[in-house]
């Protein structure tokens, strides 16, 4: 669970120099006195460094990062070392792999067994055991894999929808405005055609309810699939088109097909108080 005293977003703003002096001092005090917060800040710093080195930071954030981490020879040297480690790892990726799975270890061990002296029954039993073990492992691994992939995508969505990122305009961004399902007939979902060059899709979700809330929780799902991706808390904005909630999605997450976004505004006790749904259809040329 995220520590509310220094959230990941607060740590990011602090590291990029986007906080005032009192907030800086508060975070620095916690950094020196609380090991959990210290670890969190160092992880966020590592993630910023990672994004900077592979060019995924928004241009304004990259500029701030350079201002703080490439401003003197010692820092520049640290950056060069970090870059060297990554370049070396990428160059060696063909020959380096993570530790062998149980299945791979069994496969490697197989040639050591002299099949001529092993009775056929023993072989059959061994094969059955391996098949059963692999079947169980595959089932367990698939579930864990899906959980981890979901977490990775939600982390990416959080970064893309952070207040700092939303202020920037990434290149190759496609934008669209969606009305809620309650305002349209069932068969008139908005269509978005995404060229292969697009990197980010920005959606403006029109909010027509009279009430306004402090924050809005959005969930993205593909129609017919069970996966639901949660976005970080979003906020209402005012535009020529009216009141809207703006969010961004990575284009490569959106395959051709129908999608639904559910927008809820939680009460203080966490229960939803108002909900709107937005449908859209992605087309790929």
């Amino acid at each position: 669970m995220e520590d509310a005293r220094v959230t990941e977003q607060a740590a990011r703003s602090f590291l990029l120099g986007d906080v005032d002096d009192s907030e800086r001092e508060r975070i620095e005090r916690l950094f020196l006195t609380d090991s959990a917060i210290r670890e969190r800040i160092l992880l966020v710093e590592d993630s910023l460094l990672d994004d900077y080195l592979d060019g995924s930071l928004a241009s304004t954030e990259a500029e701030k990062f350079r201002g703080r981490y490439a401003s003197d020879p010692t820092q520049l040297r640290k950056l060069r070392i970090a870059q060297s480690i990554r370049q070396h790892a990428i160059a060696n990726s063909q020959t380096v792999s993570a530790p062998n799975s149980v299945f791979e270890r069994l496969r490697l061990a197989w040639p050591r067994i002299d099949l001529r002296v092993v009775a056929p029954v023993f072989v059959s039993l061994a094969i059955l055991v391996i098949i059963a073990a692999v079947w169980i492992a595959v089932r367990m691994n698939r579930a864990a894999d899906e959980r981890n992939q979901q977490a990775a995508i939600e982390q990416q969505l959080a970064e893309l929808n952070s207040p700092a990122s939303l202020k920037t305009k990434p290149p190759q961004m496609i934008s669209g405005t969606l009305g809620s399902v309650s305002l349209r007939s069932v068969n008139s979902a908005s269509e978005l055609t995404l060229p292969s060059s697009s990197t980010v899709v920005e959606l403006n979700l029109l909010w027509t309810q009279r009430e306004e809330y402090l924050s809005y929780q959005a969930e993205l799902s593909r129609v017919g699939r069970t996966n639901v991706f949660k976005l970080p808390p979003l906020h209402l904005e005012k535009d020529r088109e009216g009141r809207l909630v703006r969010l961004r999605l990575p284009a490569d997450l959106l395959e051709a097909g129908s999608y639904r976004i559910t927008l809820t505004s939680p009460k203080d006790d966490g229960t939803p108080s108002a909900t709107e749904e937005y449908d859209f259809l992605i087309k790929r040329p």
Partner: protein
Amino acid sequence: MPPISAPPPEGFDELLRWLNENREQATEAYLDLRRGLVKIFIWNQCSDPEGLTDQVFDRVMRKLPSLRDVYEGNPRLYFYAVANNLIKEQRKLAKSQIPVDDIDIPIENSLVDEEPLEMRNECLEMCLQALDAEKRDLILSYYSKEKRDKFVHRAEMARRLGVSIGTLRVRMLRIRDKLEECIEHCLDEKMKNA
């Protein structure tokens, strides 16, 4: 500004005792605090973070005889208060000096690569070999992908190792810290002998 006197010779032992009565734990706490203060000076874009960290310890050592019996609370907060004063002094000093933007420095000189690339690669190879094989394979695998691919790859690594992504990130951060420390030390040695 009043003249700065050197801290008393027994000051460092006193300082360690203030951090922890147990000498071994006090040394750990000192090193940990030192790393933290260096980071804070870096984040505040102070030049010479190591030197400023030394100044913090010197200032606290000088104050310690009168401070130790009256100060209540976490000593780290006192160190931070001293460091924060230094940060503010540095900012004032920077404001009173000519802005770097106004000095005509050729761009190529400000981006000079201190150590040759081959030297850096040699140190990297040497320090990778100094890691145990499992850590070496893990860190090379962790950083082997970029951009969107890295998220999926790291999630897959976490699954294989049976840990959460967060745990994997912490583990990698620690290995990389050690590796970078080794490379920096190696480069310092090589530059000294060059």
